[in-house]
């Protein structure tokens, strides 16, 4: 096991910069997820750690060793690919044993490791089968097994669950988490799926246009997104953004925009926020932080605004309401048992202790 460090790593394809000065540290035994929309450079970053792509600038370390010029076979890593990349002409046993055979591991030892991995993954009775005889989930388990038997320093996962159907994906996600708990191998995991990122990652790096926008614990990223991109990317439905202005009245801070004027709670009125009074900002509030008066116990003064309901999406455990607030659309996640009809005028309550304020120019979080 080992830590992985990326130091100012850059990758260019011709004039296109796929990864731009990424600095990232993965602790020994940590499970880190790189997440972002397609083309954000997450897979390229992973492939550079694997040694499948050259590094244009910067350094990558695995353990204490700088691996920039070390070929993949000597990096002591194992990788699981999106489409499994099993060897079709080998049976399951040999798919898993291949890497060990190349490393001249004694036959007895290979047998022991393959069998224990197969046991762990529940594919013991499939060892003689060829990959084409397996289901998608079983193939992915074989690909996992191929990584496990090697007992590498680092696991690299490149969207390993995206070829599976939704139900299986949820199950494999849990199995991956459990596997990491048992093996405690340093893991870098790439996905575009924010749920996978949140559930699997001990820390999550949100990437966009080759740059790491935020690298932190999943809950921190959700609670305190560093900028509007991260705020909009993590969380579903995405955070509402409304143009607003910070104003100060009688020593109290308000965020005011088209159709709303909301009181900033005392505990959130930081110095940074006070310094931005009078400036144009973006007010962010998550759909789950918008309620109706019926859902709120206690005082709602200074926290309400009204809108006209446009669409209602009942999901059983919740309902998603799309409403028009003075020309802007907001999305709210509400109690499914509230009777709400499209066209209805509705009063909303913003949970202002969970507000987000972003600088309109830089899109960075102010509070």
């Amino acid at each position, binding site marked *: 096991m080992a830590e992985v460090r990326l130091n100012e790593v850059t990758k260019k394809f011709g004039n296109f910069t796929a990864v731009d000065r990424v600095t990232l540290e993965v602790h020994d035994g940590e499970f880190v997820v790189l997440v972002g929309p397609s083309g954000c450079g997450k897979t390229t970053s992973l492939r550079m750690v*694997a*040694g*499948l792509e050259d590094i244009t600038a910067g350094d990558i370390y695995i353990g204490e060793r700088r691996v920039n010029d070390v*070929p*993949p*076979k000597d*990096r002591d*890593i*194992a*990788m699981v*690919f*999106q*489409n499994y*990349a*099993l*060897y*079709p*002409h080998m049976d399951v046993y040999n798919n898993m044993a*291949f*890497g060990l055979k*190349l*490393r001249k591991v004694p036959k007895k030892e290979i047998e022991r490791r393959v069998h224990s991995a197969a046991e762990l993954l529940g594919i013991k009775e499939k060892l003689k089968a060829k990959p084409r005889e397996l289901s998608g989930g079983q193939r992915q388990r074989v690909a996992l097994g*191929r990584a496990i038997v*090697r007992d590498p320093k680092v696991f690299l996962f490149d969207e390993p669950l995206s070829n599976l159907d939704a139900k299986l994906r949820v199950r494999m996600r849990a199995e991956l988490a459990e596997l990491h708990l048992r093996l405690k191998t340093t893991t870098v995991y790439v996905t575009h799926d924010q749920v996978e990122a949140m559930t699997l990652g001990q820390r999550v790096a949100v990437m966009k246009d080759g740059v790491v926008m935020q690298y932190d614990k999943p809950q921190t990223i959700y609670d305190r997104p560093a900028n509007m991109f991260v705020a909009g990317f993590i969380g579903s439905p995405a955070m509402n953004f409304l143009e607003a202005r910070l104003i100060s009245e009688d020593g109290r801070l308000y965020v005011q925009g088209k159709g709303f004027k909301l009181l900033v709670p005392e505990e959130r009125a930081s110095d940074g926020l006070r310094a931005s009074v009078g400036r144009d900002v973006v007010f962010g509030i998550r759909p789950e932080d918008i309620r109706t008066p019926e859902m709120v116990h206690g005082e709602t003064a200074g926290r309400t605004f009204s809108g006209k309901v446009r669409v209602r999406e009942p999901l059983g455990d919740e309902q998603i309401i799309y409403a028009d607030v003075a020309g802007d659309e907001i999305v709210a996640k509400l109690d499914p048992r509230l009777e709400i009809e499209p066209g209805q005028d509705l009063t909303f309550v913003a949970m202002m202790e969970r507000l987000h304020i972003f600088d309109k120019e830089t899109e960075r979080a102010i509070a």
Partner: protein
Amino acid sequence: MNMGRAHWLYLAPALLLLGVFLVYPSVETIRLSFYGPRSDTFVGFQNYIQAFTSRPMLIAFRNNLLWLVVFTLFTVGMGLVLAVLLDRVRYEAIIKSVIFLPMAISYVAAGVIWRFVYAFRPVVAPQIGLLNAIVVALGGQPVGWLIERPWINNLALIAVGVWVWTGFCMVVLSAAYKGIPKEMQEAARIDGANEWQVFRHVTIPFLKSTLAVVTTTMIVFVLKVFDIVYMMTNGAYDTDVIANRMYNEMFQFNNYGLASAIAVVLFLAIIPFLVINIRRFRTQEAVR
């Protein structure tokens, strides 16, 4: 309508054509192979004995065997190497087109071209052949490429065949090579394989069925090889091959009996490879 008889009606045109142009000539050839030069006297296995024991035929058998091994090895081998290596080259398409180009040239034209390449003049005269010009320029003695028996001239002829057919093997294998998922090779690299091991354990197994098809196709071609030899030496200086032998017996010496016997021998030699090819084709169809 009685379907029991109707199908014969539909089959009739095909059967008629096959019968007239395939079955009848084959049976007739087999019959003639047991008769004398003018097809009037029954000679039993006389023609076959000659086909398997006469010196020209033994030389032809030896040469065909040489063709079989060297030609197949080089066309398939070089085709494979080129397919894999050119995949990493920027001007792949242009280079492949050039290598494939000889396929578009007729054997007669290829023969003419290569007779110039191999042309040989006495030491005192200027060498107009490309190869000998190079040899002499490097200070060597001119070589009779098509005369030096038994290895140089036969290999020189085989080289022409390789020149023509390598492009074909390369194109077919290259198409299959490009079908290999890149992740599979990357997985092998991460698993600890060096480039040779990736080639040996991932690439080759993946190309196996294509390699088999290309190889049997080359073997069937090489057993029938005729044009190149006919054009360049017409079998002189011990370069004869079975098909050219058959042609000469038939049209030069009018020995119909012996020519037919040689044809039958050639036919029998090719059958196993045809069977292999058809079997493989069937299993591939079955998989679909």
